[in-house]
């Protein structure tokens, strides 16, 4: 029979006590030969266990943590569901986001093809190939570079808001995926290190305020039914994150000269807290007219006259 080492016996006795299988006395009775060594160790172990047994967090802290935990879980679950819903249309959405670039690229490719064909057929009309420079891949650069000591989650959100704001001001459509990304970026603030958030609370407040204003402007200028659930979700997330971080968002003054979208069954109500005195007015948005999307130019093949 294998002789048990003292650490194994000690552990066995500690576990037996913790599971309510044996008392201290019963354990000592099981190992009479080791009693003198085992008893002080076991008493110390039980004393340590007992000293922590009654320690509990305050009810307020536990409740606060639970509320935050569940609200974050809900927000994540909603976003996941929305992502799944829009997954099928992802490619078309992605294409729509860059359709201007694609259209320009198509024009450029056509022009190059024409030029090549002219040159190879000996037309030599004296005109060089069109310069496609700048037309392809003209993705929006970040409107403002984040400060170097700003936590990543904050600078990411700031960057996304600036980019979306820039595009909205230029009259471009903010797609569902982009709105969801904004929402996710805001949500990240909740799980960010609290010290980091406190450290950059001014930027965080500004970012959430800008996001709130941006979302309201999207609702005002982009009354497409398809994007409204995503905007509403993002608005709720923004307010929830602000609430968790103890930030009070001031409601922006409604844009009065923007024609209100006609009421319809899919209309999303805007969160309308009473406008606070001195609430910042949102930046004027671009004309809420529909942005003309350049259709890809049909390729016109110019054949040289023989």
């Amino acid at each position, binding site marked *: 029979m294998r002789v048990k080492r*003292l*650490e*194994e016996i*000690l*552990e066995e006795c*500690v*576990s037996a*006590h*913790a*599971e*309510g*299988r*044996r*008392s*201290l006395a019963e354990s000592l009775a099981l190992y009479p030969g080791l009693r003198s060594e085992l008893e*002080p*160790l076991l*008493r*110390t*172990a*039980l*004393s*340590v*266990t*007992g*000293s*922590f*047994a*009654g*320690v*509990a*967090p*305050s009810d307020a*802290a*536990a409740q*606060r*943590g*639970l509320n*935050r*935990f*569940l609200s*974050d*879980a*809900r927000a*994540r*679950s909603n976003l*996941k569901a929305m992502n799944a819903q829009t997954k099928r249309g992802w490619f078309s959405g992605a294409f729509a986001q860059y359709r201007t670039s694609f259209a320009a690229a198509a024009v450029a490719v056509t022009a190059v093809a024409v030029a090549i064909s002219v040159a190879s057929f000996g037309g030599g009309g004296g005109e060089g190939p069109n310069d496609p420079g700048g037309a392809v891949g003209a993705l929006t650069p970040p409107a403002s570079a984040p400060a170097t000591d700003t936590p990543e989650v904050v600078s990411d959100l700031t960057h996304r808001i600036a980019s979306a704001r820039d595009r909205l001001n230029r009259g471009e459509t903010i797609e569902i995926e982009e709105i969801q990304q904004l929402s996710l970026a805001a949500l990240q603030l*909740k*799980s960010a*290190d*609290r*010290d980091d958030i406190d450290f950059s609370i001014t930027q965080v407040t500004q970012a959430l305020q800008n996001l709130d204003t941006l979302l309201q402007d999207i609702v005002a200028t982009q009354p497409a039914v398809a994007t409204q659930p995503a905007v509403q979700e993002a608005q709720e997330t923004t307010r929830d994150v602000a609430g968790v971080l103890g930030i009070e968002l001031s409601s922006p003054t409604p844009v009065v000269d923007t024609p209100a979208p006609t009421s319809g069954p899919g209309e999303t109500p805007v969160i309308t807290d009473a406008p606070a005195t001195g609430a910042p007015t949102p930046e004027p948005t671009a004309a809420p007219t529909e942005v003309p999307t350049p259709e890809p130019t049909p390729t016109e093949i110019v054949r040289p006259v023989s």
Partner: protein
Amino acid sequence: MSPNSEAQSDRLLVDAAKDGSQQALSELYLLYYPRVYRYILARTGNTYDAEDLAEEVFMKVLEAIDRFQWREAPFAAWLFRIAHNALISQRRKDTARGKSAPLTDGLPVDSAGPEELVEHRLVLNEVMDAAKKLPEAQRQVIALRFAAGLSVAETARAMNKGEGNVKVIQHKAIAKLREMMGQPKKRPKVYESKKA
């Protein structure tokens, strides 16, 4: 509840939580939040830090729960690894900012009478003071085994060590605590009676 049925119920709960069940998430939180709190309290000695950090741990759990795999570790071991990493990260930040976390004067203790409460606090303060002088691995075992209530197997997985190794570290830690605290004097009766 036996360890086996406990593990089974944990599995059901965690799987439901992974599927997004609010009820399961809520139960998981209520089950583990006090244990994570006690673990962090045992490591920091500060109730405010323990409350805040335990809350942060659960936010990180939400972020990572989709990636949790049963075959890699029991849930408790996985959770306390997150807690340990959060603690290390917090310490690094505190050091960089020159912040120190002093022991909280009055540790909250759920106890019956005022006499018992005072005695409980004395014992807890004594244990925490002594534990502060232990080597890191021993402190970690004490915090996981006795404050958080993890089994030896779970502690081993959380610390990425063998079970035998954990038993040895535990033995050494208890022996050292005994030296530092002296022979335990009269303790509240609950320590010496069988747990219900």
